[in-house]
């Protein structure tokens, strides 16, 4: 069965979809770059955005590749490759694939038990469960953003707007939840207040933050602005190295 799941027709089907999505990304990128130039944005800033986003994404992408490898043992390589290249999320795929496997009567998600019907059903469920973000975008992205920009204009009359601050605050909330979960995991992960949980994520986050402070110091105080594009990626690398060395 695994040979069928790794066959050329499956690679072709998945490859065509991945290529389509890559083409969409290229079209949006070129349009945005041209628009930026047309409205007089600094080209160096546009280029720095591209460089920083590429360097930023390399390490998490390798992490996602590990997800493909993990799932390829039971679902073959092409389908997990497609799922994690297009709308997939690392934490989502395994969970849904597992639940779908149970529904089609498999004991575990494994190649040994896989049948063509089970695979097709698992693949369908993996697609259907996560498609809502796209559906909502098709119907409501335009109206929602229009409504927000309308209220922004309203509130901006006479004083600086809250919209920008709200985005920063939301992100601070997001980061706080994750950092809090690492500390909570260490303190109570193995029983409330036992301090026997995993300390690694806390140390990794601290090392990464410390490196980031060094990079920010160098780029702001020593005028090494070029470092900005690589600071997150290099800080992450330092944090991950710490996890390996611990």
């Amino acid at each position, binding site marked *: 069965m695994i040979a069928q799941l790794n066959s050329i027709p499956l690679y072709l*089907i998945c490859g065509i979809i991945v290529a389509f999505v890559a083409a969409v990304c290229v079209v949006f990128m070129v*349009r945005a770059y041209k628009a*930026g130039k047309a*409205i007089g944005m600094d080209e160096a800033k546009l280029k720095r955005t591209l460089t920083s986003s590429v360097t930023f994404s390399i390490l998490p992408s*390798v992490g996602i590749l590990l997800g493909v490898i993990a799932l390829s043992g039971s679902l073959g390589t092409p389908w997990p490759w497609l799922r994690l290249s297009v709308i997939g999320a690392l934490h989502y795929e395994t969970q849904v694939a597992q639940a779908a496997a149970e529904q089609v009567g498999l004991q575990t998600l494994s190649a040994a038990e896989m049948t063509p019907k089970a695979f097709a059903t698992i693949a369908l469920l993996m697609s259907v469960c996560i498609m809502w973000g796209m559906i909502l975008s098709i119907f409501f992205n335009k109206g929602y953003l229009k409504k927000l920009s309308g209220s*922004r204009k309203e509130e901006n009359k006479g004083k600086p707007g809250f919209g920008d601050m709200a985005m920063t605050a939301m992100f601070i909330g997001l980061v706080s939840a994750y950092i809090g*979960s690492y500390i909570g995991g260490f303190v109570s992960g193995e029983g*409330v207040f036992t301090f026997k949980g995993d300390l690694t994520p806390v140390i990794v986050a601290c090392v990464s933050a410390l490196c980031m402070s060094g990079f920010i110091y160098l780029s702001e105080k020593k005028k090494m602005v070029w470092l900005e594009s690589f600071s997150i990626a290099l800080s992450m690398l330092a944090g991950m190295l710490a996890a390996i060395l611990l």
Partner: protein
Amino acid sequence: MDRETYLEKYDRSTHILGRAACAITLVMLVGAPFLIGFILGALPDLSAAAKGFLSVGIIWTVSSVVEFLVYTPMLGAGGGYLAFITGNLINMKIPCAMNAREIAGTQAGTPENEIISTLSIAASSLTTITVLALGVLLLVPLQPVLQSEALQPGFANVVPALFGAMAYQYFRRNIKLALVPLSIMTVLFILVPSLISQTSLLILPSGAISIGLAYLSWKKKGAKA
């Protein structure tokens, strides 16, 4: 063409392209299991898929609605369409767009931010697509290296490494704002450790707390001005 007309035209075509791209991707993604099933000689079992959807899909549907409402304003039009097509929002696209915004110094809701966000999400998505394509091509030689026991702790901690760096970047300028949600979340996870597996949902109350605090301080500043 003046700036306003140009931007209006750009925005209109972004929505047309974004909707078309989402619709085509959707059809291909849902169609692929049927096509693959046809090639393998067995179509999907729709009743098992429906049962599966009821057991796990509902949760993901609710979380998709929340993700759409919270992240669309952060990503803008072009970035929003692309991010919902390419996925991995919390662990990559959102931090990537916020980092780009920080570097470019743009403000949410402005055309400049819309452009920076689109560029950032497109570049990030293309990087993932390239890394995964190369990884799949080189799967045989890469697999033992990437799955080696020595490197596992590193890859298991990509997200803490990412949020550690981002925490410094954002907290240093907003330490007062960060302290309250960080303390509340930490205490909550310490007292109810079972919630740790639900962190992606707890982003909402945490975000609401910091937005509430930011609003109070914004109001106060407005009153002083």
